[in-house]
């Protein structure tokens, strides 16, 4: 019974709890932590649009987030300084709220996405999240050196006549799609909490990049397992419990 109801959501969230803190480290490295909120809101809007249009919500969310991740490059010059992410966040939020307010079909899913109810995840969700989390972890590992070089030696790649844009585009897509899946599984703020807090603590406390990534994963993992058990035991929505736990852990460690 327990496994039928809760094992699949637990495993789905576990995959995300392992990969989101790593993604958070790279987003923080690039000063793009706001991207996590932006992609999450765009994914929520995409999922609701898909639902209203008679399509599968999770694919709508992923498509919208991927479009946002790839499309922001087109307006990079006009939207420097994080403006792209702020505008995406506002647009995603506005579309999602309007859809939820005007479409009965969208209202329930909208509440679920913004409340962060992980327990609705099933086998189909896990079948998407598990391989994607492994893929994202591998891609982030492969891109790590170039992403770090782009931060500390921005001229290095150009001087070596290496093109930076495939690395950045690849990272943007991985970030957008991972956040989309996280939003579909644990809600907008649940995913954002796992991206932001562990990386924030790791950047303050770790002595090396490697230790920082490991610390972020450890915080995400412990926070996730504790939040899952606590939310279940107290019969509370998962997302807010996770966010409060991570904030408490973050303030203590940082």
């Amino acid at each position, binding site marked *: 019974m327990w496994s039928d109801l809760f094992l699949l959501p637990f495993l789905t969230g576990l995959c995300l709890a392992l990969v989101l803190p790593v993604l958070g480290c790279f987003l923080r490295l690039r000063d793009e932590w706001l991207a996590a909120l932006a992609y999450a809101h765009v994914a929520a809007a995409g999922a609701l649009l898909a639902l209203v249009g008679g399509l599968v919500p999770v694919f709508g969310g992923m498509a919208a987030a991927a479009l946002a991740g790839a499309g922001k490059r087109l307006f990079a010059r006009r939207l420097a300084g994080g403006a792209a992410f702020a505008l995406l966040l506002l647009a995603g939020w506005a579309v999602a709220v309007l859809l939820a307010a005007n479409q009965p079909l969208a209202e329930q899913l909208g509440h679920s996405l913004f409340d962060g109810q992980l327990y609705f995840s099933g086998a189909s969700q896990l079948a998407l999240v598990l391989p994607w989390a492994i893929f994202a972890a591998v891609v982030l590992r492969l891109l790590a050196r170039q992403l770090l070089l782009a931060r500390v030696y921005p*001229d290095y790649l150009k001087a070596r006549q290496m093109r930076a844009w495939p690395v950045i585009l690849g990272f943007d897509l991985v970030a957008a799609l991972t956040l989309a899946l996280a939003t579909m599984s644990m809600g907008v703020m649940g995913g954002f909490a796992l991206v932001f807090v562990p990386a924030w603590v790791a950047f303050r406390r770790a002595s*090396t*990049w*490697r230790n920082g990534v490991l610390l972020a994963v450890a915080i995400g993992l412990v926070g996730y397992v504790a939040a899952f058990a606590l939310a279940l035991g107290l019969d509370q929505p998962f997302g807010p419990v996770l966010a409060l736990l991570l904030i408490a852990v973050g303030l203590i460690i940082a």
Partner: protein
Amino acid sequence: MSQILIRAQALVAGWSQPATAPLDFVLESGRILGLTGANGVGKSTFLAALAGRARIFSGVLEQRPGLRLALQTQDVPPVAGLPLSGRELLALTGATTDGLPPWLVGLLDERLDLLSGGQRHYLGLWAILRAPADLVLLDEPTNNLDAAGVAHLAGALRALAGTGVGLVVVSHDHEFVEAVCDQVITLREVVDVV
């Protein structure tokens, strides 16, 4: 046997408009070229043009095919708030720790933003200096270095040139440039080759 790494003929560089007098030089492998001169004559702009960052307005710049460049700018790597150690910084560019000054070896596993400005500068410089490259471009490498650091850097540059790597060193420190470089160009309104 030395090879020509880079050749400039009447090269005029700048960012949005021409900012330098024409420059001619040839640099062979294992040689160190110094560019010196007063502030504002375009030393750093020339270096940026050699690295493909600044624009070449006229003249010719020829590079050996497949030339691997490494560029150190005056910008300090932005490591504030970043959990990155000196060892990891060197690993990013593939730089070896061999020959690193003894006073830095013990700090390699420290977080970079906890080091002094001089220590951080030298590690950042070393990451470029000892990266696998055929031509190393250094912009004011003696900035932030104390006398021991400058002396160690001079030895490191000569040792690197001894392995066949070519170097271009931009510096306002005439004494350092004269002591280390095989050829020196003093940039003025009219370019003189010494």
